[in-house]
Structures are given as C-alpha cells and as structure tokens.
C-alpha cells in the first residue's frame, strides 16, 4: 500500500507517468502502481473516458473528477483472481478496436450518446468458444466490471459521502415501521 502511494506521488512529480522497463508495450508506458496488471498510461486514460461516460460530470462531479479509474485498477489489481484479471485486461486491450469496428470511430471521437450506446450494448455481449466469441466475452466482462466499480468507487468516494450524501457513522435509533410516504428527501440533481 505504501509502495502504491509512493508511486502515485512520484507520478504527480513526473507529470503523470511512472516508467518501468517493459518488453510488451514498447511504445506505451506500463503503470507500475498496478503491479499485477500490464496497464499502460493510454489504457488508463481510456478507462477514464469510459468511467466518465458511465457517470459524467454535471451539476456535481463525475467519475473522472473523483479518480475512479484509479479505484477500478486498484480493485482489479488487488481483488480479482488472475483469471479475471486476464479477462479484464484482454477486454480493455480489445476495446479500441471494438469501437472502430462497431461505431466506426475511435472511442474518443464518438458523441456522448454514441459512447453510451457502445458501452451499454457492450455490457450485453455474449461470448462463445470461437476466438471472436472469447473477445466478445472479454469486452463484456471488462465493461461490466468497469461499470460496477465505477458505481462503487463513485458512490463510496469522499466527495459523495461528505458533500452530497453525508455518511453517518452513527445512524440513529432504529425505527422498524417508517411510512415510505413520510419520507421526503430533496431530489439531488446530478
């Protein structure tokens, strides 16, 4: 954990990148903070665009403002089995080509609506035993994991839990019969 914090600080100093030698991705630098994943800086940036499409900034902050991509990679790096890490990173690696193939453009160049559609449809892809089927399964796995962790990382962030929906360590005495009609909460506009 300390190592990761140190690497993050180093990344800030060096302008966002920590360089470690790599034989797999000579043109793009692998991020050392997620030592079980071979994730490059550009892939993390792509993850940022995807998570920000899932929960965009508006009247209140979005996923990218809250460093959700970092949370996603920490969870995949630390809490996934090796097999699931492989599926996640394979899906992430295949996603740019998938965007070109389905939407005809790089993901970055799509409109908001096109991005949303591509991701939502991607979460519903079904795989099979063919190479193409396996790729579809990986993309679906990657997008569903990313969506789940985006929601978790966003809702369980300091910003949301202190400024938007304050979390209380002391929830108060139990009331076992609250009429739902009596609950009137001001609507939060995202």
């Amino acid at each position, binding site marked *: *954990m300390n190592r990761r914090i140190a690497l993050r600080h180093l990344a800030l100093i060096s302008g966002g990148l920590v360089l470690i030698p790599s034989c797999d991705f000579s043109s793009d630098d692998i991020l050392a903070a997620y030592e079980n994943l071979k994730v490059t800086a550009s892939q993390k940036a792509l993850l940022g665009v995807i998570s920000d*499409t*899932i*929960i*965009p900034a*508006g009247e*209140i902050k*979005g996923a990218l403002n809250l460093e959700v991509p970092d949370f996603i990679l*920490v*969870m995949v790096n*630390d*809490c*996934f*089995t090796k097999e699931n890490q492989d599926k996640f990173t394979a899906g992430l690696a295949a996603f740019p080509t998938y965007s070109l193939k389905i939407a005809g453009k790089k993901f970055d160049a799509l409109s*908001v609506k096109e991005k*949303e559609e591509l*991701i*939502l449809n991607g979460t519903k892809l079904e795989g099979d035993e063919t190479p193409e089927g396996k790729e579809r399964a990986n993309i679906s796995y990657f997008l569903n994991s990313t*969506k789940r962790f985006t*929601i*978790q*990382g*966003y*809702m*369980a*962030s*300091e910003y949301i*839990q202190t400024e*938007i*929906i304050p*979390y209380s*360590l*002391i*929830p*108060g*005495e*139990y*009331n*076992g*019969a*609250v*009429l*739902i*009609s009596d*609950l009137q*909460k001001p*609507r*939060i*506009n*995202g």
Partner: protein
Amino acid sequence: MANLNIRSKQERTYQAIVIGSGISGSWAAKELCDLGVKTLMIERGRNVEHGKDYPTTTMLPYEFEHRGQIPQKIQEENPVISRCYAFREDAMHFFVKDTEHPYVQEKPFDWIRGYQVGGKSLLWARQVQRWSDFDFEGPARDGFAVDWPIRYKDIEKWYSHVEKFAGVSGFKDGIDTLPDGEFLPGYELNVVEKYFAEQLKKQYGGDRHMISARCAHIHGNAEYYAAQGRTLCQNRNLCQRGCPFGGYFSSNSSTIPWALKTGNLTIRPDAVVHSIIYDEEKGKAKGVRIVDRLTKETEEFYADVIFLNAAAINSNLVLLNSTSTRFPNGLGNDSGLLGKYVAFHNYRAGVSAQYEGHSEYTTSGGRPTSGYFPRFRNVYKQETDFLRGYAAGFSANRGARSNSDGIGLELKNNLLNPDQYGLWSVGSHMMGETIPKESNYVALDPSLKDEWGIPQLKISVDYDDNDEKMVKDYIEQMSEMFTKAGFVNIQTRDDHRAPGLDIHEMGGVRMGRDPKTSMLNANHQLHAVPNVYVTDGASMTSTSTQNPSLTYMAFAARAAHHAVAESKK
C-alpha cells in the same frame, strides 16, 4: 545472582493465574480481582487497549482502500479465515491468519481465532440467550454424553450477575425454554418481524416463538455503565472494529479495565502458554510455563490457583501438552477423555423469502440485534427421528435501492436518489445442537510443531446422521412457517460448511459427576487437579442451541467465587 533469581521468582508469583483474556478469562480475572486476589492474566497475543488500539473504528467507507473487501492474495493464502463473515478489511487485524498459526485438519474444520488481549470478545456476535433445564437435562433425558453435574438453579444467579455488569438488552418474553434475565430495554422488532411473530402464535397455538434476540449492548441505564467508562450503544453496527463507546460488552471495554482498576491485575501479553506445571510432590498445579511470542524465551509464573480460559480448543491443547510423570497423557487426564467429545453448532442451513405485505413501510436507523427463534423441537418430549433441535435467527429487511441499469446522467441521477423499494426480504439461519461423540476429537500432532516449539493441534470433527436429519427438518419447518405466514419466493440453502465456522466449538474437557467419564467436576475443577479450573467452551458437556458466551461468563464468575471460598477454608 542467586539472590536475583529468588527475587525474580517472587516477582513471578501471584495468587491466581488466568490463561486467556477473552470473554471467559476476563470474567474470571475480574471476579478474582474484585475479591482481592492478586491475579496474572496471560495472553498469547499482543495487547489491545480499549479506545487506543482500535485503528479502524472511526474510519469512513472511502478510507478503506478496497471498500471493505479482502484482497485476493490474502484470501488465497488464508482460505479458512477468509470464510468467516466478519473477516473484512475493517477487522482483519483482529483475526488469526491461516498462515500464521497452522493446524492439522484430519477432517475439514474452520478454526476461527482471535489472538490478542480481549480475544474474540472484540469480534463476537453479542447474542446472549440463557440456557434452561431443557438444555442442562438434555444428555440425561436423551441418553448421550454424560449428565451435566449442574442445573439451571446452580447458574441462575450467576447469569444475573454477569448480565447486569455486561449490559444485556432484551424483553421479558416469559418463554420457559429461554429464561428471562436482568434486561435493559429491548430492541423492538420491525413491522414485518412482529407480523411474523403474530402469525406463528396463530398458526402454532403458542408453541413457537420469534422474539427480539437478547444482546450484550447498553440500551439504557447509562449512569450505571459510566462507572466502567462505557456508554450507550450508538447502533453503528461496526462492532468488529472495537467500539469507542463500549456500547457492547468486550473484555477490553469492560472486565479488563475494571479488573485493572482494582490494582490486583497484571496482564502479560505476548506469552504463548506451553503448559501448566504440575508439582508431583504436592499433587497440584503450581504454575504456568510460557514462551515469549517475540523473543521465544521460556518463562515460568507461579500461583495457587490456575484458571484455564484459552478458548475451547486451545484449552484442550494446553492440557494435552501439560504432561508429567503423574499425568503422561495430559493434565488431569486419568479418564483418557481429554480432547474427546468435541461438539459445535450446526449452522449449515438457511431459508430466505420475500413478503409482499406491509409495502407501505420501510425502516430507518440501525440496531445491533435481530429476531430469534428459541428451540421448539423435541422440547417437552421426543417428537422426531433425530435428537434435540435447533434455534434460529430471523430478520426482515427493506431499504431504498437505485436502478443501476442505465448509463450516463440518467444512471447518475438514479444512484443519487435511491427510491426503488422492492419487496421485504426475510431470512433465517439455523443454530443446531450437535451430539458430542468420542470420535469427534482434538489431539496433539505427533511431529508438527508451531513457531514456539509447541505441538500443532490435529482436529477431527464431523457431522453425523443426526445433523443431516436436523438440517432437513429445519429447512422443512422453516419453509412451512414461511409459507403459512404468506411469504413468497422461498429459497433454501444447505451450504455444507465445515464445522468450526459457527465459532461455537465446545467440549474436550467436559464437566460431569464421575471422574471416570468426565474431566471437570460441578465447580469446573479438574477432578484430579482441583486447583485448575476450566470455565470456557472446553468445559461444555453438551452444546444446546444458544449462543454460548453468556454461559461461559456465568461459569467463570461462579468458579472464581468457588476458588476464593476454597482458598479460605
């Protein structure tokens, strides 16, 4: 030098030694200290001081790097402890990792341990239901194990004694299988739980009850508990982190600081007990040999009376490893029964469902307890093809959720404004009595040793046919009760978990009337070494169905008073 040694031996001599600082050990120590006995408490783990050593207790959800989840690597390296429901990022520092303290599983057994001052009292589920004579008379009536040498009347005042001090909330339900006690105001059931309790009364003619479970939380009379430095439970439901309010009973928040205040208690943490030392000439135990956890150096402490409260299985280990010319097979083990007749609670099955009624209601706030079914099977007479029966937990829940199907701004607004109320969810889990058997045992491994040179424990415990029948009956009966109450989408599970995950392992040093068939007498003394008392789970002759900690507290308090009375004779 000689002089130094003599002084050193005097400094290492106390009137009483208590091995273990968990629920039962801390109760023994507290009572002894209150009675003016200079007491040494030996704990194998590190010190954990109330309020000071609860590093996660006020952490907010976003402060946990993995939001509570245990990283994959830790899970893979520690499969046993990773199966424990409370082994999460916020409390993992209070649990023993598999890799740190290995043991031999002849049959799968999930041994859940907490090695620190306070032991598992920091981590327990805080459910405190009294036993009744339907439990104490069980073995004699149904012809298993041996007769308990005590009855409810022997323990009743000690239940009251410990309940009052520990703080127990509950209602006087007037149920003969679950005697009422010294209760602080209870926690009300919610609207659907009350509905279910009423349905049971209607459908089963008053034979089956579902009540608010009695729990060791302070829910009133705050002035009384202020003397212990504790205050009202704040309904945080973060108990496993250690409670800065002392809202629930733990050794750390209650009995240990109380005992320290008497000036009679010395705590020696980081001391792994090797054995109890037997004085062949005097024919009694004279002290305890420990190995320092960190330096690995051996040291001896001496006392007139020794309380063994190392937690059920480790108390067996200590006695098995305490060999002498007089007791080559373990201290007090003339009968050859030491380590045998180990039993546990059967937690394998659960039933869940949904309820369409009371759809206008939800709940708010938090509470530290839920519903409880006292045993209703085979209580007044044998009525099934299996012996004994089961208690069960019960709860109903409903809260607002968000629709997370969409994406973008729509998803964001849904997440920020949870307003989807599904049906009420209801759920139950069984807590079955298991029958102690000679074939369920713990023993020392003949070759494997731990880091401190102490033999590793070998555990051989399994379910039997009686347990299988009981699981089936619980599932049938609970499903029937759910159906009669109008619950829908009923789902049943039998997860075939290994014994041990109930964290209610018991026996091996059982009480009884006859030294030939038991290890301890009615006062928790080893028949053959009466200055050694065992008052934790190891002493259990049978398991009944109730969560056992309250009974260990009462046993420890009662035995401590007995020891002091004996010493004055």
